[in-house]
């Protein structure tokens, strides 16, 4: 289907109106800024309902195949919807691990039965998905994951533990990286990938209190938990390949995601606006030359990031190192958000010491909370240091350690 500019503009207008009319009012409790922050049942129910509503309006999974519950439409329409969600400052779309990581993976590599079983309920938020990659002893070194999966008849028996499991306590399914062959030639070849059910005897999730004081993720224990053998994705030994593909979707380095905003980015302008209100030496803080320099640097970095998104598609301007921009987006975006929140906190002068919960905290302590939460993206999904290794090796051709 060829879309004209007019078609796109008409569609955008329709979407804009829909979000104007349907974006929910402030519910009166704190809403998460990232999908990783969902911590209370109240937040969870609210966001799950919101996702269902957006899906039912036809605005999620628009480019996924119709036979599995998608919209069968061009990707550009979904991109327009996502842009309009950002513009309308809607709540985020929560089932990210399903929509943007597991979903595209299942569509790309899953069996027909797996696609039929999982895709639609990912879109409706009926089934929440989580990711079981990291373990207490193996995080950045994901290839060393040790959770055991032993074949027993037409089942696998799971033993071990996963940790930092986002949505662990809400999830019905987990994308799970487990070791099926401890004797393999190397650590990668011993791994397999499962679409594992969570409501199984022997699987237990324990909430972990985050640095903000809230709850958000869990440790997940597997104690002789039995799952059907056909939960495997691909065949035994293909786990590492599947995990790497998942990470490509997760980091946005490949397309195929269902869409929707997963992280609400703060804009530098919001901090600039605050700097105009806050006082320093009896004058607006924005007049302070050191602060001005910091703000301008942030504005430059924000601009470079959004221009980079445009330039990434322009062959003559990125031909020398075509992977440089796609592989650095997660690193750059997450670090910028962290620095921005840091400046926003310091800007508050004496009041920077207020935390959420205090009636005098600026914007209910939003920036303090954002600063701490910003580490979710600089650590999760592969830390910033690991991203730098990847860029140094894959883009610059520097040798591995």
């Amino acid at each position, binding site marked *: 289907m060829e879309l004209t500019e007019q078609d796109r503009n008409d569609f955008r207008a329709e979407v804009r109106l829909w979000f104007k009319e349907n974006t929910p009012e402030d519910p009166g409790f704190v809403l998460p800024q990232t999908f990783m922050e969902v911590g209370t049942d109240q937040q969870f129910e609210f966001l799950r309902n919101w996702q269902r509503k957006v899906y039912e309006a036809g605005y999620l999974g628009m480019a996924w195949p119709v036979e599995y519950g998608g919209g069968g439409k061009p990707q550009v329409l979904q991109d327009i919807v996502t842009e309009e969600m950002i513009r309308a400052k809607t709540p985020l779309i929560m089932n990210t691990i399903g929509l943007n990581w597991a979903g595209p993976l299942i569509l790309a590599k899953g069996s027909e039965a797996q696609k039929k079983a999982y895709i639609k309920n990912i879109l409706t938020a009926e089934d929440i998905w989580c990711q079981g990659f990291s373990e207490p002893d193996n995080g950045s070194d994901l290839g060393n994951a040790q959770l055991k999966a032993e074949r027993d008849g037409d089942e696998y028996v799971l033993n071990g533990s996963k940790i930092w499991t986002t949505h662990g306590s809400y999830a019905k399914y987990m994308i799970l990286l487990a070791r099926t062959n401890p004797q393999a030639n190397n650590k990668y070849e011993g791994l397999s990938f499962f679409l594992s059910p969570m409501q199984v005897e022997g699987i237990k999730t324990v909430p972990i209190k985050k640095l903000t004081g809230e709850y958000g993720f869990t440790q997940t224990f597997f104690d002789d938990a039995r799952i059907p053998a056909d939960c495997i994705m691909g065949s035994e030994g293909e786990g590492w390949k599947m995990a790497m593909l998942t990470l490509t979707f997760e980091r*946005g380095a490949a397309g195929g995601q269902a869409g929707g905003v*997963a992280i609400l980015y703060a804009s530098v302008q919001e901090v*600039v606006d605050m*700097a105009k209100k806050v006082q320093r030496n009896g004058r607006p803080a924005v007049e302070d030359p050191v602060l001005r320099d910091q*703000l301008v640097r942030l504005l430059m970095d924000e*601009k470079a990031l959004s221009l980079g998104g445009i330039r990434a598609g*322009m062959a003559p301007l990125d031909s020398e190192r075509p992977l440089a921009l796609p592989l650095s987006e997660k690193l*750059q975006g997450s670090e910028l958000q962290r620095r921005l929140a840091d400046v926003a906190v310091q800007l508050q002068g004496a009041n920077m010491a207020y935390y959420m919960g205090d009636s005098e905290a600026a914007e209910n302590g939003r920036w303090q909370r954002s600063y701490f939460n910003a580490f979710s993206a600089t650590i999760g999904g592969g830390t910033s240091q690991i991203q730098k290794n990847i860029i140094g090796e894959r883009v610059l051709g*520097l040798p591995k350690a």
Partner: protein
Amino acid sequence: MLNVKTERTINFSDEQEQLLEIATNFCREKSEIAQVRSLLNDEKGFAPQIWLEMAELGWMGVAIPEEFGGSGLGLGEVVALVEPMGRALFTSPFITTTLAAQALLAGGTQSQQARWLPRICKGAVLSLALSELHGDWDLSNLTATALEKNGQLELSGTKTFVSYAPDAQALIVSVSLNGAPALVLVDAEALPEGALVRETNVDETQRTYRVVLDGLRVPSDALLNSGDIVPVLNQIHLAANLLSAAELSGGIGGVLEYTLDYLRTRKQFDRLIGSYQSLKHTMTDILLGYEATRSHLYYAAGCFGADAEGEIALRMAKAQASETLAYAADRAIQFHGGFGFTYDCDAQLYRRRAIWGASFHGDAPFHRQKLGDLLL
């Protein structure tokens, strides 16, 4: 991860694409590092026959309207020529001549334009004499003066960093006239003996001169537009920074590759040094700075002249380019170890270039300050 796309986009024309490719090949061929180094001690500092080839390719006329013999494109297209020059450390009077042409287009009289622009297209060198000993980047801060006497202008004072002055057929000189800034087009022949004094420039690929104006007399029709010249000076300032950003951006690409080559071949403790993270991660930071520079630069190239947005874009480009090249070249020296401390290591060439680029119409903090005024 999703980014909000900016409403505007990067306008990259077919012409820019072609020029970028042609200039990349041209500079690679004509400006190998041995050639760059052989010019360091050359009095002229550039190869006249290559300059003529550039004129034949029409490069000096890229941003000059067709009626004067140019190709009628804009400075955005010139950016695509200058970036590869910076990468190859290729130097010539190209930037100063292009800027002089822009000054004439912005503020020259009809007869000045008719006389000089066609010559520039054919290869005449023109140069700008704008800065002064006080080192201020404010082009309106002028101590050199012109006095009107009997239909003539009598100039006095000293201008600094006049590029390729001995090769220039004319200089465009800024002075204070009746307390207001003015620009004067000075024929090279009118310069008194000894007016040009070669400067020792930190960037040895450059040729710059102090010009002593004392005793210089020119006819009063040598004045550029007698109206308010401040907008013209501002125009030159912006154009200079756009081209400077392009040249510095190229330099980052050059020094990045130069350092990577070393990190991929030099071994210590039985390991390639590029496998050490304090080097690897620093190189990644430099790459990210380079990518940011190019995004800002080509965005700025595409919206040059578009009022505030164009100015914001090019100041961001210059600030980013200047800071990134300084850092990249500083680390390049360090990462070459003892060899980095030698004259033979090319890292110093780029570090010197970074200082020259920062000195040229504003360094990174200067532009960030201006950006603060525009954005905050």
